[in-house]
């Protein structure tokens, strides 16, 4: 019998599509997005203190890529690598992409995902905890991450929010009232 997919996992075909795509453009875009965010809201990175120089790997378990993040504010770096090449990280957080996105926007509680085994971590636990707490306070919106505000930003946010709710439902992501309410 085939093993059941983890809750919230994307279909394997999406991983097949992503595999050959060039990673550098995504890495550059994410690096610029985080550096821009640090310039607009430097207080978000003050929570990280001594952890800002420590690289953390975030691994979507349903995709053949990993994000190696050094959250050093305006000097932040995001590398997009193969999961096997994230060895420089002091700590790693693993979950399906949709679950990680729910953590990023505050829909999910990290401890609850850990209790239910939807999220796993290894390495220096304090680096992951610090990053998780800083992100949870950030109240990041998709529009803010890409630096769009005003009416265009609100339209973008609504569209991304709607798409995520549909994706969470279709992928059987862990239930929370915030992940399913319209």
């Amino acid at each position: 019998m085939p093993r059941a997919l983890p809750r919230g996992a994307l279909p394997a075909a999406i991983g097949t599509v992503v595999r050959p795509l060039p990673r550098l453009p995504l890495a550059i875009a994410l690096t610029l997005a985080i550096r821009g965010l640090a310039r607009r809201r430097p207080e978000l990175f003050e929570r990280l203190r001594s952890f800002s120089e420590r690289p953390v790997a975030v691994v979507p378990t349903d995709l053949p890529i990993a994000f190696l993040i050094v959250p050093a504010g305006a000097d932040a770096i995001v590398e997009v690598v193969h999961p096997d090449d994230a060895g420089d990280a002091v700590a790693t957080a693993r979950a399906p992409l949709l679950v990680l996105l729910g953590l990023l926007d505050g829909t999910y509680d990290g401890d609850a995902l850990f209790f239910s085994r939807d999220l796993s971590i290894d390495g220096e636990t304090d680096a992951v905890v610090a990053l998780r707490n800083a992100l949870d306070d950030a109240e990041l919106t998709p529009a803010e991450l890409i630096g769009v505000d005003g009416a265009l930003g609100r339209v973008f946010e609504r569209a991304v929010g709607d798409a995520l709710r549909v994706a969470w439902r279709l992928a059987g992501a862990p239930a929370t009232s915030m992940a399913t309410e319209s």
Partner: protein
Amino acid sequence: MDASLRPDPLELVCPAGTPAALRAAVDAGAHSVYCGFRDETNARNFPGLNFSPEELEAGVAYAHARGVKVLVAINTFARPGAVEVWRDSVDAAAIAGADALILADLAVLDHAAAHHPELRLHLSVQAAAGTPEAIHFYTETFGIKRVVLPRVLSVEEIARLNREVAIETEVFVFGGLCVMAEGRCLLSSYATGKSPNRVGVCSPPSHVTYGDEDGCLTARLGGFTIDRYGADEPAGYPTLCKGRFRTDNDYEDHLFGDPLSLNAATLLSGLQAAGVKAVKIEGRQRGKAYTAQVVRAFRRAVELVAQNRATDDIQALLAPLSEGGGDTTGAYQKTWR
């Protein structure tokens, strides 16, 4: 029941580890929010968590504008030679406009009572004051107005206690559950060399590691293996008191306490009848998603109890947020006796 005969509604005291969580708690229906500074003066001193003095001031303004109180926890025990760190936190909370301080240490209580007589003082659960005599001492010496009771009393014991004390009592009703006497537990200190009661972190993340061994998630604290979870087994916090141990006769189990969350939602009516003034949700280390969901569920529950109506079944609603995926009424019912 005649409305005039009904007891006051329970005050819902909710956790906030970050400014975002404070706003989530306020928006979800908290009557009061409790939080702490970003240092060792409070018992949730986790990396990336807590408030700067400026963030606290902004949080107080947000809460007060919506009729919600802010209680500041400065509830660890001061280090000898560094009491000024705790005194400074008391002063900063007063400047920020806190409605009350939650304290445990005698020197810190003395400073607050002497220098901020206008501030309400609550006795933290960390003081483990569970007898009328102990509570009288804190009341007469420092003028405390409320005691947060240790999580070792049954509802009947709380009712008896309330008949013998003149101040308000507050009890935990949801979240992480210490099975030891708060403020006196040395298990994490033994394993890590860092006392939760002084530095504010039980099982500090700097001393916690997780690894996949033989298909099991293995949790270690200070090098001690404290549990191994099978592939589909719910996990708990990496605390020694919830660890799984093997005895000499090869009996293996959670010998001190099961990895479960406290959930006393079904006991709210009994707690109110026992004279409890406020009910508290644990979880300043949790995300704002937890805060919003738990606060919303308990706000509805305390309102139904105030109307003498049955509460919804919020057990199932909150189970996904619970440690180990399960819950217990803990000492309130003492079913193990």
